[in-house]
């Protein structure tokens, strides 16, 4: 199955990989070959396919207890750590959450954030 350069670039963007032009060419060819081999799955008749078996359900834990402790604090793991936070370069409005939060912060200052009046209060 042919995989185009555009396909490769689209997948790489989804996977947050930046590929060199050579890598794009190579992956296009290799993925095509691999997908050709995988194509044999299409031979299997749909009707013959059973539902996935469930051997045991997700165990549930009590709401309490203690997390596995950290032998090193997060600041010692972090590539960039400032004032108690993990730090990343300021997001140019990349997608939803970024703008949301940016606005939220502004709004926090500027909007009157009175609590909602409860459903019922004394009759005026």
């Amino acid at each position, binding site marked *: 199955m042919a995989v185009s350069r555009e396909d490769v670039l*689209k997948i790489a*963007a*989804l996977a*947050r990989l930046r590929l060199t032009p050579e890598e794009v060419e190579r992956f296009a060819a290799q993925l095509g070959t691999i997908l050709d081999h995988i194509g044999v799955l299409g031979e299997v008749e749909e009707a013959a396919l059973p539902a996935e078996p*469930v*051997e*045991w*359900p*997700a*165990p*549930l*834990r*009590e*709401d*309490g*207890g*203690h*997390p*596995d*402790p*950290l032998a090193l604090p*997060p600041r010692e*793991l972090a590539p*960039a750590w*400032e*004032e*108690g*936070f*993990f*730090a*990343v*370069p*300021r*997001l140019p409005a*990349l*997608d*939803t*959450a*970024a*703008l*949301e*939060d940016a*606005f*939220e*912060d*502004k*709004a*926090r200052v*500027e*909007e009157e*954030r*009175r*609590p*909602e009046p*409860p*459903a*019922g*209060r*004394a*009759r005026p």
Partner: protein
Amino acid sequence: MKFEAVVGLEIHVQLRTVTKMFCSDSAEFGAEPNTHVCPVCLGLPGALPVVNARAVELGVRAALGLNCTVHLSSRFARKNYFYPDLPKGYQITQFDRPLATGGWLDLEEPEGEVRRVRIRRIHLEEDAGKSLHDRLPGRTAIDLNRAGVPLIEIVTEPDLRSPAAARAWLTQLKQLLEYLEVSDCDMEKGSLRVDANVSVRPAGSAALGTKTEVKNMNSFSSVEKALEFEVARQVALLERGEAVVHQTMLWDAARGEARPMRSKEESHDYRYFADPDLPELVLERAMVERIRGSLPELPAARARRFREQYRLPAYDAGVLTATRELADYYEAVAARAGDPKAASNWVMTEVLGWLNQQQCALADLRVTPARLAELIRMVADGVVSTTAGRRVFARMAETGRSAAEIVEAEGLAQVSDTALLEEWADAAIAAHPAEAERYRAGEDRLLGFFMGEVMKRSRGKADPRRASQILRERLRTPERPGR
């Protein structure tokens, strides 16, 4: 042409648990940044999720309270996307097999009409951390305390027809979730968050128009404002003969406008698949039935019962069932006071008035239901007047003492002594000869004025029935010698 709005809502609700959805880290709000973190919620290599039983239980409670079908088998899935506050690069949520589907919550509209708003689905998921853009110069600060806090997402069908209805329905939803003790529903802390889908169509049409998604609304009032803005924008487009574009709009409360979000096309390919770290979530029917049996009486049912059992007007019943605490308080007062309507009046005017004036919560009120009931009985028995009773209530709320103690200490017991009442009546008449003359000339309503004067002179202690009798007697004859 007249247009109508079609609105559906997506509500994220943080569940009231001690620990996070998939690890035993604290789910508490407001701690120092990155202190409630562990291998699991930091997304460290090798860490694995384990489901919090309480979160599941709360999700089931919410689903049952919203009349949903709870599925005995559901599945966690991964929603894959990159964001700095999403530690694993995916969110654990539920996708094709959610916890619950097919419920409803009726909206009781002002005219007494009932609109059924259907719930499409409720699913369990974990929250992301927070990205703070104004904390560090030129950089975004990431706090992962919130990462992994349990949520339910409630998705409605597009059954709401106006921004005001959306707001009213959200208020009822919040009330319900508070009754269920599923969440503290505090929008300021972000424990309840609302997104909306909006479209407009010619009134009477059954077809759905192109919808937009509106996000970033921080209060119910901003939901209403944002929806009004967006509906107006869409109507204006259609009236100009232009088309509505399917996109996400972000509400900017500061500017009072919603703006389209720039987005990458690929950012919507979430590549959902069943989370291989978590087997199916299987609930026992008995567990679901146990939860169903433990549900409290819900607001609508309770208001109905208040109307029937206590013979309260619909307005009173609505006010008194606004919160579970208030309704419990009222019922405790009513049971002891013996007069449900009097109890309602006292709770609605004195109790709510006091809380409003003092800006405090019912839980902080120093007047217990038993003590308020005692006061109500004292008024009914004529020990204190209604007027004095109000003052007694205020003193009870201030001091935490009982009505009897305050009446005793401050001499507020009602005066029925004829001699004293006559003295106050005469003084009032003597001070206002012109009004007395007009009363005698037939202006009956001035009796109220003189009652007020007597009450003033008695500092509210005069027995109103006796006092009005005496006033009527004294006003009948123009002059009385002596005294």
